[in-house]
């Protein structure tokens, strides 16, 4: 006879769908989840401590390795923070390049999120479609800076290389190519009856819980709040572009369920395409490196600067003691916060739903552990 006692199930760190090396300690009653406790630290690389012995420009490649699916944006956030600390202004062309790269990166990152989410739910084919499209974005990045994953491209005060002469044409080609692919993804996955059954009304994140935990990015927007730093706390030149902020409307179930979180990302890709289109149309000529200081010695002081990376508010808190190395660097990682709320979301759901919920909050363990 089976005794009816609570079962502790260890998910991970070697588990196919914990999106990296996350260990979840799940308390089960039958197949119902009583509690979920995430255990972190399997990917901890002492980023913040390490920064204290590096000079400011040397930190840039290390930021790549936090959210490795959105390296460009990590560079971007660090560069913005440092420029605010130094009080320098970068050339127009650099701003445009950064926005184009950042939004391409957002699409690439969301493609991974959506594709792997399909795999979590059991649909394998959309995953390969999204990776095929992401590959095209990575080729654009490779053309620009030579790297496909960790770019070290956006530097303090500029970017490492100017754009390839063909870049703008190929980007326009990509936009034309990619728009129908979103429709295809919607037909294949988003509006699939089984997919909706699995995700609608599952893992509902109420607005107040989201705010209490400090959840940002697509996860917060899916709960119904149109909060986007690109519009609400503009950095770089985002105030020049027209774009909407998609929010969860509870189309298939309740506001803030997994389907909303999924679909907000689909919609954000469309908005990113709009931004890229506008930026490509109006990018000026110019030098991309003229603002780069050779030796960086910021004044004594602190700066907290935040950008909207594909997963939410990525903040850099930097304390400078006037020397060549920062006194302290602290990163506010959006994935870390999204992971905290996981236990709240999973209670009372089935084991299968843990995977659906974990996939929908879209965490990157590199950023959680740093």
């Amino acid at each position: 006879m089976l005794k009816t006692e609570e079962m502790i199930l260890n998910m991970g760190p070697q588990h196919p769908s914990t999106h990296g090396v996350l260990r979840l300690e799940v308390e089960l009653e039958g197949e119902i989840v009583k509690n979920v406790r995430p255990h972190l630290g399997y990917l901890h690389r002492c980023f913040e401590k390490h920064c204290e012995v590096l000079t400011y420009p040397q930190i840039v490649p290390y930021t790549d390795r936090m959210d490795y699916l959105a390296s460009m944006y990590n560079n971007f956030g660090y560069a913005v923070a440092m420029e605010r600390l130094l009080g320098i202004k970068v050339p127009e062309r650099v701003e445009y390049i950064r926005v184009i790269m950042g939004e391409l990166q957002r699409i690439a990152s969301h493609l991974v999120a959506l594709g792997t989410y399909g795999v979590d739910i059991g649909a394998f084919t959309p995953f390969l479609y999204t990776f095929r499209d992401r590959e095209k974005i990575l080729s654009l990045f490779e053309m620009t800076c030579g790297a496909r994953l960790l770019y070290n491209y956006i530097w303090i005060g500029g970017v490492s290389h100017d754009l390839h002469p063909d870049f703008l044409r190929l980007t326009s080609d990509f936009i034309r190519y990619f728009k129908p692919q979103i429709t295809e993804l919607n037909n294949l996955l988003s509006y699939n009856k089984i997919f909706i059954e699995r995700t609608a009304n599952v893992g509902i994140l109420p607005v107040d819980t989201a705010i209490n935990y400090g959840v940002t990015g697509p996860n917060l927007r899916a709960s119904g709040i149109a909060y986007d730093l690109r519009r609400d706390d503009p950095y770089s030149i985002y105030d020049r572009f027209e774009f909407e902020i998609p929010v969860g409307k509870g189309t298939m179930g309740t506001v803030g369920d997994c389907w909303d979180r999924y679909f907000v990302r689909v919609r954000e890709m469309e908005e990113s395409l709009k931004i890229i289109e506008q930026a490509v149309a109006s990018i000026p000529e110019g030098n991309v490196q003229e603002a780069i200081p050779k030796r960086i010695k910021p004044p004594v002081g602190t700066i907290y600067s935040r950008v909207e990376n594909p997963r939410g508010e990525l903040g850099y808190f930097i304390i400078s003691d006037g020397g060549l190395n920062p006194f302290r660097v602290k990163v506010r990682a959006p994935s870390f916060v999204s992971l905290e709320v996981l236990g709240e979301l999973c209670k009372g759901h089935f084991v299968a739903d843990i995977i659906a919920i974990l996939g929908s909050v879209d965490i990157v363990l590199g950023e959680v552990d740093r």
Partner: protein
Amino acid sequence: MYEYLVNILFSVTGNQFLAQASVMILIAALPLFVVILPYALAAVLAERKVSAFMQDRIGPNRTGYRGLFQTLADILKLIQKEDIINSEADKKLFNISPLLVFAGSYAAFAAIPFSGMFIGTNAEVGIFFILAISSLVVAGILMGGWASNNKYSLLGAMRSAAQIISYEIPTALVILSIVMLTGTLSLNTISELQTAYFWNWNIFGGAAEGFKQFILIPFMIAGFIILYISTLAEVNRVPFDIPEAESELVSGFHTEYSGMKFAMFFLAEYANMFAVSAIIATVFFGGYQSPFGYLGNTLNFPLLIPFEQFFWFMIKGLFFVFVQMWLRWTLPRLRVDQLMTVCWKYLIPYAFINLIIIGIISLL
């Protein structure tokens, strides 16, 4: 053929019992080596090629001409692998489980009529035998999941048992309606009743006469759809592959299995896919009957007919296997409670209503 072989062996060995027994074993092993193993090898490759085609990939293309020998290479690799049994496992049950699963799915082929001539046993209760013997698979899966002493395996096995047992009910109900219509449990007789042209197939009303045939068509199509969905669940294919849901349960009940034991689960899965497709083809789509009459009759060469029948049977069976693959690479997976909802709230009531209506029509 049986007596001929027995006579030869008797003259060699001089032992009647030994001769009979060895011929029986030979005949029993024949479908395995002639049909199922080559089919399973081809089906695994086909699955990978079909998925590659659907996913914008190339698929295996290194072993042999365009990867034709890929599965063979995989099987050879699996045979060579170390057979790992974890120290906490219940060794006896752990070892029996893959055999039981394989035997259950393979034994079903004994009663499947590949053609008028090539049928393992022309049992009067053929379809009942298949339904009964394929339940053996559940026992094997439960054993494997329990004996592995792994939480994922246990969860997978529990789900699997619940799922397979539940979905046997709509399957049996739909098959029952065909049995009522044809008045026989023998798959060979069911096939023979659907002879001549494709409008005699059960899906188009079968051999019923006049207006009855036309009234039956919508209910037959409904029955076919119910049967197809529930057999998908019985063989644990997407969207019902919950027992081995890799994103949640790693690989469900066979998480702890490696080497040849894993290969046996794997082969059993593909054998099962074909077995249920063959049942669908037999009860609804004329079994081994050709849709347009036989070349052998036209040429006045009757020896050709069994081979033609075999050809048509394989075409029909493999088509349904292909549809299973197609679904697998298109659809996401249901959750375990939704799976049960589909079965108990929709399929079983509809199958019951369908059964009653077909019963009334056949009484008219």
